[in-house]
């Protein structure tokens, strides 16, 4: 009884649209005719689609890898410094995650501005550039990933920091007595103890990054020449801007398999955590 | 204030029977302790009286009324939990008065009752503190205070002292007894600690595997246990059980333990056991306090034997000695000056006036 509003909300505004999008994907552009897998076969024949698939995967995997790496490294540094200051540093380093991504991406857009780029201004002192941050294919891909890493790394930092604190200090002392150097301590103590959190955070971030919209949309709108489009932005372009709702729905449906696999693994890990506790 | 009665009460979880039909009459003002090992059904029984568990079969009566389907709040009971279950966001006073406030008692009366209970429990100074700021013993008092202000028909205690350290436990035990002497509310108290049971109870209910083994006053349980389980459960160190059989010895009745050791039974015991078949496998039940060092002036019924000690444990006022008889481990309590030493031979005396004889197969005390 108490869960009724929850069930209605999920059923009506999550489950129904999810199923509905499968139905939509089988219609033609004016949504009057059933075309079966027509939209999918159409997509398969388009180079842009395969490019988006490739770009989404590269984008998500690269961004998550660097978020995880930076998060892990910074978490260790923060963990190293004494308590009171630790709070301050942690507070400062989490700021990117707190600012609404649409707002902070605007700042990046301005930093990358073709004529006034503050980065290029700085780099010019070293005789580098000017770099065409968002206009050149390779640099544009680099830029969207950079911004995503900037936005997401603090989340990893916080999760890892929480995990680091949960590792009992005695384990490190025991390892030190056993003669482990700092690298062995990370490899044999820290990583195994944090494995679960690392897995959950990574998978979770994989979903979020894979489905990202804000950053790419604001930074490049998919350009130059669709070279930075990922599923969400391309679905938006085709479905909303191009008014081909069925095709847009088909595009976004391609996210499902990857999301589902990640979700299954997360669920397994979360349940495992629950059982351990 | 009221009496409590259980009639053939059964609790079944899926296919596990936690409580297998127990009958119990608790008189008004009585302090009853349910004691037994974990999983014996004592807590389930208490929770059924509280109304926190449904009963599968049977009847529970409080003050003569069947309360099987009465919700806990209408049973007029109060309960003290093992982890105290104090509301962490409320002060001591708010914790104690929560039930009264829910029932919309007048403010003045609530205040009066809280003040009175706080005075009784000596927590008047703590009344505005939060549970977090209290020690374990203080929390325990507040939990009792919460029960007292309600002025219920029955107090229910669910292992209230098991989270306290040993010293505090003794102190709170005395406290609980004092409170009961003042308020005289019918009390059902669950514990796994037989010392608590013995010291607190008017009558003790020993439970095992969902059944009642024996109901009796602490002295009855100690001196006249009905079963091997009760005999072994009550008393510390536990009663020794030594395999033996009865033997006729020219008109007298002997009890034979080993080829070398056999004792003549004192007349009172001999008369009681005379009718038993001589072939039965029996157990001699004797408490450690009835095995001590031998000395010159032994009373009638006290028999001596020689053994080799395995281990000795000096306790200060006494020394516990451990040895084996017919493969059974036996413990005795001797004077610390009797010279008991690990691995040394010693002559000990067994007071057969306090012995029990049990049927090995059924575990019933004969």
């Amino acid at each position, binding site marked *: 009884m*108490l*869960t009724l*509003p*929850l069930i209605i*909300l*999920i059923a009506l505004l*999550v489950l*129904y*649209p999810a199923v*509905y*999008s499968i139905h*939509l994907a089988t219609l033609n552009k004016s949504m009057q005719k059933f075309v079966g897998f027509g939209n999918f076969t159409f997509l398969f024949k388009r180079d842009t689609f395969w490019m988006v698939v490739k770009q989404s995967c590269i984008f998500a995997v690269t961004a998550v890898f660097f978020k995880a790496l*930076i998060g892990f490294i*910074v978490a260790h*540094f923060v*963990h*190293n410094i004494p*308590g009171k200051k630790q*709070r301050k*540093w942690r507070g400062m380093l989490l*700021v990117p995650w*707190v*600012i*609404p*991504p*649409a707002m*902070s991406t605007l*700042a990046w857009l301005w930093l990358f501005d073709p004529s006034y780029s*503050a980065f290029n201004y700085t780099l010019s002192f070293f005789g580098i550039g000017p770099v065409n941050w968002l206009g050149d294919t390779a640099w544009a891909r680099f830029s969207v990933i950079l911004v995503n890493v*900037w936005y997401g790394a*603090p989340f990893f930092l916080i*999760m890892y920091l*929480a995990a680091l604190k949960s590792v009992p200090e005695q384990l490190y002392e025991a390892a030190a007595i056993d003669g482990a150097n700092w690298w062995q301590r990370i490899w044999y103590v820290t990583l195994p103890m944090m494995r679960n959190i690392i897995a959950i955070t990574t998978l*979770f971030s994989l*979903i979020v990054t894979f*489905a*990202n919209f804000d950053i790419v*949309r604001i930074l490049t709108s998919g350009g130059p020449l669709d070279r930075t489009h990922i599923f969400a932005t391309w*679905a*938006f372009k085709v*479905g909303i801007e191009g008014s081909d*709702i069925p095709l847009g*729905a088909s595009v976004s449906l391609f*996210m*499902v398999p990857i999301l589902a696999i990640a979700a299954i693994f997360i669920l397994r890990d*979360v*349940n495992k*955590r629950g059982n351990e*506790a | 204030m009221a009496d409590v009665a259980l009639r053939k009460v059964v609790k079944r979880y899926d296919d596990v029977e936690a409580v297998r039909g127990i009958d119990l009459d608790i008189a008004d003002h009585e302090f009853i302790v349910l004691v037994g090992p974990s999983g014996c059904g004592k807590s389930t029984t208490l929770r059924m009286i*509280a109304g*926190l568990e449904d009963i599968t079969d049977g009847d529970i009566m409080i003050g003569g009324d069947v309360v099987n389907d009465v*919700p806990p*709040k209408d049973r007029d009971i109060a*309960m003290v*939990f*093992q982890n105290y*279950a104090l*509301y962490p966001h409320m002060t001591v006073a708010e914790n104690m008065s929560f*039930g009264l406030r829910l029932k919309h008692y007048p403010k003045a009366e609530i205040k009066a009752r809280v003040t009175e209970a706080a005075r009784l429990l000596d927590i008047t100074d703590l009344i505005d503190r939060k549970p977090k700021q209290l020690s374990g013993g203080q929390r325990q008092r507040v939990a009792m205070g*919460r029960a007292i202000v309600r002025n219920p028909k029955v107090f229910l205690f669910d292992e209230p002292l098991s989270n306290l350290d040993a010293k505090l436990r003794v102190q709170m035990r005395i406290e609980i007894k004092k409170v009961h002497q003042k308020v005289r509310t019918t009390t059902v108290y669950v514990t796994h600690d037989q010392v608590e049971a013995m010291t607190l109870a008017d009558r003790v209910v020993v439970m095992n595997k969902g059944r009642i083994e024996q109901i009796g006053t602490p002295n009855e349980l100690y001196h006249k246990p009905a079963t091997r389980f009760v005999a072994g459960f009550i008393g510390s160190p536990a009663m020794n059980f030594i395999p033996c059989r009865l033997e006729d010895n020219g008109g007298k009745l002997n009890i034979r333990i080993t080829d070398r050791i056999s004792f003549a039974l004192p007349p009172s015991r001999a008369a009681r056991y005379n009718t038993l078949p001589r072939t039965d496998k029996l157990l001699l039940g004797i408490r450690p306090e009835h095995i001590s060092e031998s000395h010159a002036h032994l009373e009638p019924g006290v028999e001596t034997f020689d053994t080799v000690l395995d281990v000795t444990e000096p306790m200060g006022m006494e020394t516990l000695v451990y040895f084996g008889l017919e493969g059974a481990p036996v413990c005795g309590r001797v004077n610390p000056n009797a010279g008991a030493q690990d691995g040394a031979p010693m002559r000990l005396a067994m007071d057969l006036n306090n012995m029990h004889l049990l049927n090995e197969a059924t575990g019933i005390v004969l």
Partner: protein
Amino acid sequence: MSTLAIDKSGPTRKVKLGSMSRDRTWALRWSYFFLVLFAIFFLTPPLYMLITSLKSSAEISAATNPWWVFHPTLSNYVELLTSNQFLRFFWNSSMVAIMVVIVTMLISVPAAFALARMKFWGSATLATGVFLTYLIPDSLLFIPLFKMLATVQEWTGITLLNRWYVLLFIYPTLTVPFCTWIMIGYFASIPKELDEAALIDGASWLQTLTRIFIPVALPGLIAATIFAFTVSWAQFLYPLVFTTSVDQLVLPVGIITSLIKGDVFNWGQIMTGALLGAAPPLIIYAFLMDYYIAGLTAGATKG
């Protein structure tokens, strides 16, 4: 909650003599060195926002040193804060965020209470389902939702598209699952004896919820509220799709669609708007950092 308790104390490292302490001093120095580097990386964009927001258009187009303000001015702030349009965005955003928080709490707190305490048929499945729903991203649902709203609008004649209040129905799909999930965690950590004590004290389930569970799980409730607010405030895709008229826009969409006029980028104002748009979450974060972080880590640690 555990994070809260731990963070305040932090690791206490005793200063020992000998090589051990020298190692640690060096580790500490290197840590600070790298932390400063990372802090520069992490804080450059927001600081650059601030720097630009204090510049006049003239100074920006003069292309002087972008990292320094030579003639600081508040004119961008004055202009935006007196602009009806910008205030409208701000108002829309605030209304949406606050009301979504209320709706979210009304749905997820009772649901979490039921899922944490009442074992009914399918309750475990539902709890798992809630968690899975949380993993479904907005970019998967915006197209079917758009079409659904259009269809409902056609059938009933009620205007849904291009109205800010439609977001009140849509945003809870993002906030409710996570809030329910973390509240289940917080409620489940309340000992069972506490509700039994309340039951014996004569509390109904509603009284148990409002007078025991909610106060005891208050840190969780605050964390969930912060989460719901920041998600609603930051959401970009749904309002971009569902609202178009200038008076219906929320802040993120409003700044991007109205301040960017064609190719004329008034960067001073855009940065000012972005900073003002980032302000509410930042202020909440500054004051309630511990709750914010507790909510962040709760998803994974409250398995």
